[in-house]
């Protein structure tokens, strides 16, 4: 015989409450980093008297701008469900190439690093997209191979940059009392945001990151999109390296170690999902700034050795990713 069960009004009320808590988690995920940044700034302002000065803050942002450039490229890569572990080594390569190029011609010092590191990024992209190799293994191999290349080119010595005022202006100059690298970083984030949110390419990146197979069948140019993402990531890392060399007036083969980790942490803290398909440029910018402020705090405290800092980096990454996973699960994504 046919029997009927009673409907549940309780369930309707329950689902409304569930909707509210899901919205809360979504809010946390999207803007949690900003909230933490504001909190940290507030705490620091109280704890350290010299913190909230224009000079100090401007300095923090300037120091962060190199990681910021890298984070722009990393955001594209991670949203497409990839990862680029080679950016730290490419940063070093960029700096070394800039130091060499500036001796030949000042203008080259920015162009050569971008082209060379972009070419390596292109190679990464080809292996990942066309040869269908896992991004982490390809970029891990690049991380090690490029570092080897840098050491082979420069030995272990720093290459000094002297007598190149135009080039060093890009790293140390000021416009309206604000360092030039900051402007470059802001520009990169702005253009990156525009491309990610307002172009077909950006839509393709999101699609590939959420469901690559479906995107392929829907006619999205998957290979080309990925290749461009890794090329841009490499090129930006090269640019960052060149600008850093300009700031330091030296190309150092040892810079960039573990920068890929920081870039990933910044992007993830900013709300971009490590599993792909969702992310924002603004979030990555907040993440970079947060990392920069934390680094500044550590310097202010002054007593932490670099070893302890490494431990803190590792722990920080774990905590951030764990929170993200928890929030994602709560949202049933």
């Amino acid at each position, binding site marked *: 015989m046919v029997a009927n069960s009673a409907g549940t009004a309780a369930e309707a009320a329950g689902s409304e409450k569930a909707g509210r808590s899901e919205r809360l988690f979504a809010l946390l995920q999207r803007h949690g980093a900003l909230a933490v940044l504001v909190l940290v700034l507030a705490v620091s302002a109280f704890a350290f008297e010299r913190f909230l000065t224009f000079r100090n803050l401007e300095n923090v942002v300037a120091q962060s701008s190199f990681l910021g450039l890298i984070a722009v490229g990393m955001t594209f890569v991670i949203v497409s469900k990839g990862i680029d572990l080679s950016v730290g080594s490419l940063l070093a390569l960029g700096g070394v190439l800039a130091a060499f190029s500036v001796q030949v011609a000042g203008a080259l010092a920015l162009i050569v690093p971008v082209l060379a590191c972009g070419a390596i990024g292109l190679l990464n992209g080809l292996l990942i997209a066309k040869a269908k190799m896992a991004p982490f293994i390809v970029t891990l191999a690049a991380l090690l191979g490029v570092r080897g290349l840098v050491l082979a080119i420069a030995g272990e010595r720093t290459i000094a940059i002297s007598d190149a005022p135009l080039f060093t202006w890009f790293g140390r100059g000021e416009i309206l009392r604000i360092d030039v690298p900051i402007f470059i970083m802001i520009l990169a984030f702005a253009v990156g945001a525009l491309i990610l949110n307002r172009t077909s390419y950006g*839509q393709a990146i999101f699609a590939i990151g*959420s469901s690559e197979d479906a995107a392929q069948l829907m006619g999205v140019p998957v290979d080309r999109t990925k290749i461009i993402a890794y090329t841009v990531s490499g090129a930006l890392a090269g640019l960052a390296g060149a600008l850093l060399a300009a700031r330091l007036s030296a190309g150092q083969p040892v810079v960039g170690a573990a920068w890929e980790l920081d870039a990933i942490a910044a992007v993830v803290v900013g709300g971009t999902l490590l599993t792909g398909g969702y992310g924002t440029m603004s979030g990555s910018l907040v993440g970079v700034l947060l990392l920069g402020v934390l680094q500044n705090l550590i310097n202010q405290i002054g007593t932490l050795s670099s070893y302890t800092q490494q431990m803190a980096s590792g722990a920080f990454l774990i905590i951030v990713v764990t929170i993200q996973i928890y929030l994602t699960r709560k949202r049933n994504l």
Partner: protein
Amino acid sequence: MNEQAPILKAREVTKRFPGVLALDRVSFQLLPGEVHALVGENGAGKSTLIKVITGVYAPDEGRVLFGGEEVSFASPRDSQAAGISTIYQEINLIPMRSVAQNVFLGREPRTRFGLLDSERMNREAAEILGRYGIQADVTAPLHSLGLGTQQMVAVARAVSLDARVVIMDEPTSSLEAREVDTLFRVIRQLRDENVGVVYVSHQLDELYEICEKVTVLRDGKLVHSGDLAELSKLQLIATMLGRELAEVERRATGFGENREVGREPVLRVRGLTRRHVLDGVSFDVRPGEVVGLAGLLGAGRSETAKAIFGAQPLDSGEVQMAGKDVKTGSPPSAIKAGIAFLPEDRRSEGIIPGLSVRENIVAAAMPRLSRVGLVSEKAQNELVERFMERLGIKASSPDQPVGELSGGNQQKVMLARWLCLDPKVLILDEPTRGIDVGAKAEVQHLIDELAEGGLGVIMISSELEEVVEGSDRVVVLRNGSVAGTLSGDDISEENLMETLAEGGSSENGESAGE
């Protein structure tokens, strides 16, 4: 009827894979405004032919002609751009993106400055959906809609791409009856617009309703092509199987006749509840009984099955086997208590690729086949041999990689995996989906045998006919709770559909996703 030149033509197409001749000089043609059925068992070559046409594969021999000109598409992108759209059985859209973003992916409308125009995109997406009678919030993420609506969005996208040929591969497997009607309305509209439709399906009733022509493939070869009206259903099946008509008639049904059912329930399920998914599901299963679990997509059938097996977390609820409580949320506990579960998607949840047939069969029996952590090869091989024979699993040897077997044989390997545990209750989620007509009859026969042997069976199937024929009792789910139960003579397709449809507004399955 139609004297025009074919819009799509495949001429003597041959395609080889290592060790397999997938297509052997197959020819096929589609006229504009024609709805053409493409049928055959699994392994007959249907999907290979479609993949050659759409550019996933390149043919080894033969040619494909589109619009009278020879073409060789390098990828699905090219064929789509040329005017061939495909709708797949699985919903191949992006769940995380909105409806409008999915409809326009790859060809988003732009503003004057070349940037994306979201407003126009949303507006036009709503228009397209409205034209086909589909109601949905175009800014909502796709995954928030019911599967049926999602499939209709896929249809809308395919159709809006100004295709001249639309290929539909098992398009109705996720649709309710009402949505199937909508789909057929869309197809008729396409026909009026002189678009050619290739319709691939195992659902013979649907074919007879909507298609004019039929092409039958078997073992990679073309065995018949002509008007569908000239063949009876049985004749069509006979052609697909390559068997004599009389033999097919003899084997048809017999599923679910004459069962003896025990009195005391072997499985008792009480109050299974999980927020947004299940709401107080309770029922019993007796030894020798086949309980059909029916419901629309999103009703919670697979979730109920998984909950009983411990693979779905529960907020509350009890499962009892032969009077004893079974720990929920733990597959090993369920297995120990005698419950076995065959999942719906054998590719993502069943078959372990890279391992052999042998290793796949014993996968769930490991604790019984090993002492002190070592696998007993003798016991293992004995078990494997016995069940390969009993179920008629066709493989070159037990060590053959399981990925090389046909769909039907893989399903049998899955069954063997569970039967070799000698379970008391067997839960089957879509046991005959995606396998050919011959293997399907074998599996149904097997279910009969098992029930006769005293096994309690829970069977989930989207084919109403299969549920009605094979079940002694039917539990109908709607939105995660039991909407009704049918038993004995009350089990019929009409009663079933009535129970399914009753009081139904939220068919979009918003709270009880599947």
